[in-house]
């Protein structure tokens, strides 16, 4: 049995009186692709952001490789964040830097990689996401799909062990969704551990190892994609699936 890379124990999060996450306990094994689906407002994004402590949990713990993030000092948290790449719905590229500079910034400042090595690695990653010809472009000149692929390359530049995707295709025009999902599929094929919050059911079906169905602040169902989509166990999941077009 492999040791889990992420373990979530009794995780809860409130924003003031608003209880968003209630007592979540799950784990992610190395190489697994987890797809988190569920209705909007169910706490999916908050849950994902708790994994790398962009949101501080109200109670419970998040263990990464056996270390409890919630009790570590900020410096160690920064070090562990390097190993968890994150891709955002709105890309969050740095608008004042070129594509290449966006990718090189963190390796050079955080890991003290020298310029030549960082440039070389950035070009490799850009080839991987089919954007090497845009290395010197500024983010404002990119389409949404291109920007999101750059964001993925930027996260990969830190050589993370886990990639977190927070609705990576929700802000994209429909014709651009495919190019981003293809890059993610490829990444999954290479064995990257991934936690993906998405509404793309097709992607969940074809790529996920496990589907976590989340609603009302709970993981209601943790299932294989095959059984989840053909034979959902909980009433909440049945209700959700009946409402979306498949």
């Amino acid at each position, binding site marked *: 049995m492999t040791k889990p890379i992420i373990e979530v124990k009794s995780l809860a999060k409130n924003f003031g009186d608003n209880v968003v996450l209630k007592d979540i306990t799950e784990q992610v094994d190395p190489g697994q692709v987890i797809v988190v689906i569920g209705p909007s407002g169910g706490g999916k994004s908050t849950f994902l952001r708790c994994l790398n402590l962009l949101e501080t949990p109200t109670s419970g713990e998040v263990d990464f490789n056996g270390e409890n993030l919630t009790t570590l000092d900020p410096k160690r948290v920064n070090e562990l*964040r390097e190993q968890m790449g994150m891709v955002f719905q*709105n890309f969050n590229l740095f608008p004042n830097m070129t594509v290449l500079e966006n990718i090189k910034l963190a390796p050079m400042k955080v890991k003290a990689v020298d310029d030549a090595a960082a440039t070389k690695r950035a070009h490799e990653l850009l080839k991987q996401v089919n954007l090497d010809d845009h290395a010197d472009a500024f983010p*404002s000149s990119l389409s949404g799909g291109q920007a999101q692929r750059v964001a993925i390359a930027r996260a990969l530049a830190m050589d993370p062990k886990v990639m977190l995707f927070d609705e990576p295709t929700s802000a994209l025009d429909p014709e651009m969704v495919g190019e981003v999902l293809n890059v993610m599929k490829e990444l999954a094929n290479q064995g990257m551990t991934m936690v993906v919050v998405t509404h793309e059911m097709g992607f969940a079906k074809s790529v996920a190892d496990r589907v976590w169905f989340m609603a009302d602040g709970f993981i209601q169902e943790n299932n294989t994609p095959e059984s989840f989509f053909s034979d959902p166990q909980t009433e909440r999941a049945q209700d959700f699936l009946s409402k979306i077009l498949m």
Partner: protein
Amino acid sequence: MKKKWVLFLALVIALFTGAMMTGTTAQAASDDSLAQVQKKGTLVMGTSPDYPPYEFQATVHGKTKVVGMDVAVGEKIAKDLGVKLEVKSMSFDSLLVALQTGKVDMVISGMNPTPARKKNVDFTHTYYQGGYSIVINKADKGIYKNKDSFKGKTIGAQTGSTMYNESKKQTTDTTVKGMTSVSDLILGLQSHKLQGVAMEKPSAEAYVSNNKELASIPSDFDLSASDTSASAAFKKGSTSLVNAANKSVDQIKNQNLVNKDYLPAAGKYLKTNTVNTSMLHYWKAFLKGVEYTLIITVCSVFFGFILGVLLALARMAQGGPLMTGLRWLATAYVEFIRGTPMMVQVMFVYFGLGLVVNLPALMSGIIAISLNSGAYVAEYIRGGINSVDKGQTEAARSLGMSRGYTMRYVVLPQALKNIWPSLGNEFITLIKDSSIVSIIGVSELIFQSNIVRSDTYRGVAPIAVIMVLYFILTFTASRILNFFERRMQHD
């Protein structure tokens, strides 16, 4: 909120009481004034050099320096004490403050030893007994005879001077208008805003002999000896220094040195001054003004920006009581600086801090303006940081960058771009606002123009020159800033 306000007030009061206490202890110290000056080797004399022939600026071997009969008196006193004389220029109003705060050791500026002044400073014996005249436009010569001819009219006098007080007291139905510099008064006279200007007789004669448009009439003021005599002033309680100076003053009086040597010598400078009054002839004076204006502005922008960044970060500090305290302090600082006039701040740094450390005027000016600018820049930067999308911070933090790196490499560069126009505005404002330090005698553009005005007896031309110079400076600055703004545009 209310509690915070009370605390803040308490802090301000504590600060001022502290300043006052230092003042009293300094005064109560035993009299070693003479020994101190001799130990220093220099005697610093404060004067307001716009009062020919008492004191004024002249170009000697290509350098501007303060000359006149008062300077000659100062030199004689310094020589007899066996020390070197150093002349510091400032406005007449500031002279006694400078004396009390130790910025200067002695004031000689055609000053009358009036009873009111005697309460605050010690005077030597009289070195010169003058009288008052009123300068009028030559065209009006038949109309005005003496002080009583100005019913329903306006006469001018230097603010803070004896003439000003006596003019108020001894005229009826006459408006008395005070201005800081005599050159401004003469300008007021020539532009018919004033019908007469009361001043010391030698000064009046100097103006009349250098300007054919002017004439002088006797004032017929009823004056006591102390109102018409001139003495050197020293800090209250410095008896040993006053006694030593009195020996020199008595010699000057006995040998009639003022009339025999000092006034004729001053007259010669006046002649060389007025030979060529074209503005071009004074390009060096203006250049020096531009140079100092630029030094003050550039240094203040630099230090003000650093202070502004620190204050902005302090104002946004989050966390324990230490951070809360820091935030509160920064907020109090910004509010206090924005709520008090820059002119008062400049005077406070120069005279107030002068009680603790003796800073040169230029440095005081730069410090005061940097402290002032920092408060404004802090607010721009805080706004700029808040204007950067939160997603930028999250992206940087998710890449493992620390809070500090995120601020430095991701947020601040973008904030800077957003606030660049505001910062540019601040820079241009500073070029103009640096003129405030002229009150403590830093030779920036305004100060230099006043010198040229009193040198040449021309009122308007120097103002026009510095107007153009200021515009050239600000316009060039705004072009340069626009260039960088365009370079930062990527989206």
